[in-house]
C-alpha cells in the first residue's frame, strides 16, 4: 500500500485551524465581550452556541436532502453523494442533540424547567428522532447500492415531513420566544452591538466546524468503502491461492504465519 490511510486533505488543516480559532474567539466574545442580558443574566450567553447549533442542524439536513436528490437523479448518481448525505446527516443529528441539550440547560434557569411542551422543543425532538431513524437504516443495509438508494429515498421522505411537523406542532402550542434575528420574518434584530456580533460570529464558527467535520467524515466514508473492497480483494486472492495448489502434492507444508494472531 503506497498511500498512508488518513482523512486529511489539503482542505482539512485550513478548515481545522479556522474552526478552532473562530471557536476560541467565540468563547471570548460570548463570555467576556458581550454584556449579560438585562433579564436573563448570564444564562442568555448560551444563545451564542444554541442558535448556531440549531441553524447548522438545519443546514446539515438540507445538505443531506440535496445530496440524496442528486444521488437519486440518474444523471448525477455517484457514490460520493451518498457519502455526503450520510456524513451530513450524522453531523445534523449531533448538532440537533447539542441544540436540545443546550436548550435544556438554558431552560432550567430561565423557564425554571428543563423541558416544556413548547412547539420548537417538540419539533426539534421529532427532528432528532427522524434522522436517528435514518442513521439506523443506514447501519442495517449491507449492500452499498441498495443502501444508497433506500437511504436517499428515506432522507427525502423525512425531509418532506419537517414542514408538516413544524406547523402542526406550532398550532398545537407555542411558548418559545420568537426568533431573535428575524422577529416575524423581518430582518430587524432585537439585540444590538456586542451581542449581535457574538451571535453572528457563533454562526461563522459553527459553520466552519461543520465544514471541517464534514470533509473528514466524507473522507472516512470513502476509505471505509475502499476498505470493504480491499478486504474482498484479499479474500478472493486467498481463495484463489487455496484453489491453485490442488494439483500439488498434499505434503507441501502450509507456511506458518510470521506475525501473531492479531492480524488476519
Amino acid at each position, binding site marked *: 500500500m503506497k498511500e498512508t490511510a488518513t482523512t486529511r486533505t489539503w482542505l482539512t488543516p485550513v478548515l481545522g485551524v479556522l474552526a478552532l480559532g473562530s471557536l476560541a474567539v467565540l468563547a471570548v466574545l460570548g463570555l467576556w465581550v458581550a454584556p449579560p442580558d438585562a433579564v436573563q443574566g448570564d444564562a442568555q450567553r448560551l444563545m451564542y452556541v444554541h442558535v448556531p447549533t440549531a441553524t447548522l442542524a438545519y443546514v446539515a439536513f438540507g445538505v443531506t436532502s440535496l445530496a440524496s436528490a442528486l444521488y437519486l437523479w440518474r444523471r448525477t448518481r455517484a457514490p460520493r453523494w451518498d457519502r455526503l448525505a450520510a456524513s451530513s446527516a450524522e453531523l445534523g443529528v449531533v448538532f440537533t442533540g447539542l441544540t436540545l441539550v443546550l436548550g435544556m440547560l438554558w431552560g432550567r434557569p430561565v423557564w425554571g424547567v428543563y423541558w416544556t411542551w413548547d412547539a420548537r422543543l417538540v419539533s426539534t425532538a421529532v427532528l432528532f*428522532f427522524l434522522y436517528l431513524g435514518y442513521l439506523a*437504516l443506514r447501519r442495517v443495509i449491507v449492500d452499498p447500492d*441498495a443502501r444508497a438508494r433506500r437511504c436517499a*429515498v428515506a432522507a427525502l421522505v423525512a425531509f*418532506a415531513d419537517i414542514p*408538516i411537523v413544524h406547523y*402542526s406542532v406550532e*398550532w*398545537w402550542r407555542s411558548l418559545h420566544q420568537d426568533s431573535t434575528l428575524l422577529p416575524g420574518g423581518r430582518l430587524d434584530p432585537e439585540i444590538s452591538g456586542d451581542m449581535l456580533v457574538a451571535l453572528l460570529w457563533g454562526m461563522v464558527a459553527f459553520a466552519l466546524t461543520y465544514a471541517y467535520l464534514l470533509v473528514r467524515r466524507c473522507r472516512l466514508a470513502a476509505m471505509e468503502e475502499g476498505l470493504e473492497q480491499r478486504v474482498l480483494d484479499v479474500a478472493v486472492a486467498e481463495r484463489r491461492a487455496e484453489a491453485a495448489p490442488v494439483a500439488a502434492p498434499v505434503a507441501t507444508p502450509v507456511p506458518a504465519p510470521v506475525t501473531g494472531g492479531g492480524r488476519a
Partner: protein
Amino acid sequence: MRRFAGSVLLVAGKDLRIEGRSRVTTNQVLPFAGLVLLLFAFALDPDRGLLPRVAPGLFWVAVLLAALLAVSRAFAVEAENGARDGLRLSVLDPAAVYLGKAAGVAAQLVALEAVLAAGLFVLYDVDAHQVWLLALSAGLATAGLAAAGSVYGALAAGLRVRETLLPLLLLPVVAPVMLGATRAWEAALNGVPSDAWPWVQVMAAFAVMYTALGVIAFGPLLEES
C-alpha cells in the same frame, strides 16, 4: 387509466385475500389493539373520570401501534417465496403496486378502527358527537398512516431487523397525524367542530403529500436487487 385502477385493485385485492385466508389482522392485530385499550384502563385509574377525557389520544395510540403491525405484515408477505421478484417481473406499474399496498393497509385499518371505536364508546364511556367529523378525520388519518406506512414498509422490507426498525422510522414521521387525529377527535367529542378544521387540513396535506411521495419513490425501491 382504467388499467392503472385495475392494477391498484388487483394488488389491494391480493393483500385482502391473503388477509382473508390467514386472518392475521383479525386474529392477532385486532385483539392486540383491544388489549392496549384495556391496559390504558389499568394505567389510568378508571374511577377518576380521566379515561373519557383522554380517550381520543389513547384511541389513536392504539391505532398507531396496530398500524405498525399491519404495515409490517403487509410487507412481510412480499418478502416470502420471492413474492417481491414476482411483483417486479409483473407488468404492473410500481405506482399502482404502491397504491394497492396502501389501499390494502388502509382497508384493514378502517375495519380495525371501527371495532376499536366501538370498544372506546363501551369501555371508556365516551358519548359520540359529530359522527361525520369523527369519520372524516379518521378517514384522513388512515389515508396518511397507510400512505406513509407503505413507503416505510418498503424501505424496511427484506431487512432482518425490520420489526425493530420500522417503529423508529415510522413513528416520528406520523407524529403530525397522531397530533391531528387526536385534536380533531377531541374537538368533535367536545362538540366544537370548528376547532377541528386546522387539523383536518394538516391530515389532508399529510395524506396527499405522502401518497405523492410513495407514487414517485416506489419505483426506485422496487427495482433494486
